[in-house]
């Protein structure tokens, strides 16, 4: 046979195979819209406001979303002067922060903040980065560099109908720059107080118009605060802290309508951490992730699919007795979405998700707990009139638990006790009325659900002669119902945005990590316990604007009152959970920024009214301790040496050398000098 003919036929076959794969990708493998398929930069430039997909899954302008949402832009992040994400978030209205150490901050939305805060879902480009073992976010282990973040989206209130379990207090979606559309190339080096040394590099490379990659790496080394800590709080002496992280992001354009994305990340973090029992421990985190996603525009709509796996290794010292805790968690998530229009007035989204999550038991090893979760969801956005739109989102999750491995002698459960299935519906409904270009009013009702973490679900297992503890298959998901109204108003002349919202939240089936006891023939086991419910009422008011293009300013205020309805054994924080007394009634943030040629200056003031925190007692319980109201000042001065080189000095808690802000050790003043270079 003629070799040229064979070669041509092979090429044709290869081309046909390529087309077939492309079509299959387009039809069968739709992918997640979160993050990478949208040219956020071009849309933001056009609409002069950020665009998001984090509220109902379809792209929307920030002013159109049926949710109370803050979008922190890349400029806001840069001008915050923060070295990490919690440092950026502490300036956002309605965000609660508990700063336990230089690298250890717990973040809550609308109160309900606690050590190992579990009510907040945190994602990077749609991939969860919160840890399933306790259901919280170890911020130091999040493998993203500050300068590769396009925007941080903070959605307040439950959003489980889009994101699933654990999006009960709020969602923080960190959206990075898309290498296909944005070229980010920078190196920054910083040093400061607490022996801080940090470096970060981001590089983007485009392979024509068809493919692009972004690679980032960063490292950080610092001593923790040296402020005194009570002996009862200190389970382990504070150690030197460090972090390193690597992130890889590639996007390939298979054709004009189909994108393939591949992401991989790794991080290690050693830090001193306030544990869920309010005792300071040493924690080591190792995380890895891989993700693949397809995005296709087709006649069926915006079809999308993504699959990712996260690995988390966490060692906590001291653990129990001489045994550290070794948590090993792996979660695999597969999602399929399709967003399409129906006529001119309707946008619909249908989605399915599968999740497999597993973790070994620790410190007593030999078993593992796991669950499989299937979810279907739908969203319907109906433009009733040009000024009025209604969005309804509904999701149903079915979670099947399981356990494999050893059954200790005298253990109160068998593996078959884990053969349980929960079905949880969640929804978001929002009506948005825009009577004129400058006003947007919202009425919203939503229900979110929070899964018991894997530890409370059985991975935390202590079997010893003196004390026994086990997570339980009997704990049930918590649910949060949220009612909310909101109003945004733009005063066009002086460029001022007024935002106001009022909310009521009811949470039930709230969990404490301990408090329940079960007697077996061989032993007594302590278990997590359902401690009751809680109600919250609050208002958020914000004003922000610019003046003569040189000045930017903002002020926001959140009064909030929480009422806990806990069982007697859990009252006054006895079981390491108390929201009524530990959520400040008043939170106030204000900021003022100035730009003039090569100079930039920004100042941030935060005021928190007197509240309480939790501290451990000799009886292994926790108790309330008062925290005086405080005001803290952050600031930044930056000078652009050339168009590519910038120098800045920033600081946090500048007004005091040390200041008590939590029930833990006082925070210290931090000052940081940074040189950054763009290439």
């Amino acid at each position, binding site marked *: 046979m003629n070799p040229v003919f064979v070669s041509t036929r092979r090429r044709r076959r290869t081309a046909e195979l390529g087309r077939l794969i492309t079509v299959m990708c387009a039809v069968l493998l739709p992918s997640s819209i979160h993050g990478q398929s949208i040219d956020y930069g071009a849309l933001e430039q*056009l*609409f002069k406001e950020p665009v998001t997909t984090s509220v109902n899954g379809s*792209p929307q302008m920030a002013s159109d979303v049926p949710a109370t949402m803050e979008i922190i832009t890349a400029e806001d992040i840069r001008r915050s002067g923060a070295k990490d994400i919690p440092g950026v978030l502490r300036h956002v209205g309605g965000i609660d922060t508990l700063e336990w150490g230089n690298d250890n901050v717990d973040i809550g939305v609308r109160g309900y903040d606690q050590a190992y805060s579990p009510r907040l879902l945190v994602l990077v480009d749609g991939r969860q980065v919160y840890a399933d073992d306790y259901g919280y976010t170890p911020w130091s282990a999040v493998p993203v560099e500050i300068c590769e973040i396009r925007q941080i989206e903070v959605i307040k209130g439950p959003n489980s109908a889009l994101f699933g379990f654990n999006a009960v207090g709020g969602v923080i979606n960190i959206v990075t720059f898309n290498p296909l559309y944005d070229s980010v190339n920078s190196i920054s080096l910083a040093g400061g107080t607490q022996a801080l040394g940090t470096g970060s590099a981001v590089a983007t490379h485009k392979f024509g118009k068809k493919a692009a990659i972004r690679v980032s790496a960063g490292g950080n080394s610092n001593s923790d605060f040296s402020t005194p800590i009570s002996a009862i709080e200190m389970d382990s002496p504070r150690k030197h802290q460090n972090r390193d992280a690597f992130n890889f992001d590639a996007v390939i354009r298979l054709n004009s309508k189909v994108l393939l994305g591949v992401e991989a990340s790794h991080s290690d973090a050693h830090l001193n951490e306030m544990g869920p029992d309010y005792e300071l421990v040493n924690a080591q985190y190792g995380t890895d992730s891989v993700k693949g996603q397809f995005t296709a525009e087709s006649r069926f*709509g915006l079809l999308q699919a993504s699959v990712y796996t996260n690995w988390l290794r966490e060692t906590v010292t001291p653990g129990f007795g001489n045994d550290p805790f070794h948590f090993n968690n792996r979660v695999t998530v597969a999602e399929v979405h399709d967003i399409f229009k129906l006529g001119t007035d309707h946008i619909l989204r249908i989605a399915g998700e599968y999740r497999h999550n597993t973790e070994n038991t620790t410190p007593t090893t030999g078993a593992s707990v796991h669950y499989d979760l299937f979810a279907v969801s739908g969203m319907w956005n109906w433009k009733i009139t*040009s000024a009025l739109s209604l969005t309804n989102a509904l999701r149903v999750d079915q979670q099947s638990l399981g356990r494999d491995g050893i059954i200790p002698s005298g253990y109160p459960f068998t593996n078959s006790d884990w053969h349980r299935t929960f079905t949880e519906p969640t929804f978001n409904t929002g009506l948005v009325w825009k009577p004129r*270009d*400058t006003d947007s009013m919202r009425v919203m009702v939503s229900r979110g659900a929070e899964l018991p973490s894997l530890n409370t679900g059985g991975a935390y297992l202590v079997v010893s002669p003196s004390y026994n503890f086990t997570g339980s298959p009997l704990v049930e998901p918590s649910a949060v119902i949220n009612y909310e109204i909101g109003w945004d108003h733009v005063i*066009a002349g002086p460029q001022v945005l*007024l935002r106001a919202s009022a909310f009521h939240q009811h949470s039930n089936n709230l969990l404490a990590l301990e408090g329940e006891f079960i007697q077996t023939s061989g032993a007594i086991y302590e278990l997590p316990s359902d401690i009751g419910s809680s109600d919250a009422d609050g208002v958020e008011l914000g004003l922000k604007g610019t003046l003569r293009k040189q000045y930017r300013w903002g002020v926001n205020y959140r009064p909030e009152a929480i009422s806990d309805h806990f069982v007697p054994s859990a009252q006054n924080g006895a079981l390491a959970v108390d929201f009524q007394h530990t959520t400040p009634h008043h939170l106030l943030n204000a900021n003022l920024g100035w730009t003039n040629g090569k100079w930039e200056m920004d100042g941030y003031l935060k005021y928190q009214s007197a509240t309480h925190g939790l501290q451990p007692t000799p009886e292994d319980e926790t108790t309330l301790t008062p925290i005086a109201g405080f005001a803290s000042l952050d600031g930044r001065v930056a000078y652009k040496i050339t168009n590519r080189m910038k120098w800045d000095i920033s600081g946090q808690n500048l007004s005091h050398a040390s200041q008590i802000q939590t029930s833990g050790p006082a925070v210290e003043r931090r000052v940081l000098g940074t040189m950054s270079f763009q290439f």
Partner: protein
Amino acid sequence: MNWRYPISVVSGLKLTLFVMLLGVMPSAHAAADQISVENLQAAMRTLNFLESLPKEGIIVVGVVYPAEVPTAKSLAANTAKVITTLAGPNSRTLQPIILSTTDLAQFNGHLNVIFLVAGSSKHPELVLGALRRLHLVSISDDPACVDTNCCVLMIRTVGRVEITLDTALADAVGARYSLVFTMVVKRK
């Protein structure tokens, strides 16, 4: 201290209320004989999302004015002048051509897109005929063009950027926008 005009808290609140009421009142739109650079910038930026636009080369923008309005030609000339200072997708050059509505009806040259200055939409038959014949996208910041179905995109930048897409007209002239764009804008 002897303040002649003391500002009390109540006065402060009244002042705040007054300022807010000023903000609530509808803002005056740009007069019909003025150019809004913001509107033109937004109009040209929408070309980033026009998938049916040729991928390379100069983008020819017809600036169309109503022949019967005396000041309209100079308005079109000023519009064209602003357009020359703007960039198209991927920094491509925008080349304006000034045409009256009657010129447009007979035009047989090359155009990629037209911008309708205020008043042009009073001649829907001339504009629509040209759009269909030349497969053109029309953009305007004149709200009247929505009612006369003359503009594929109507753009306003009062307070916020509002873009209305006439999906039927876009289909009729063969204009294809990215799906994401069509989901973000208002659809008619």
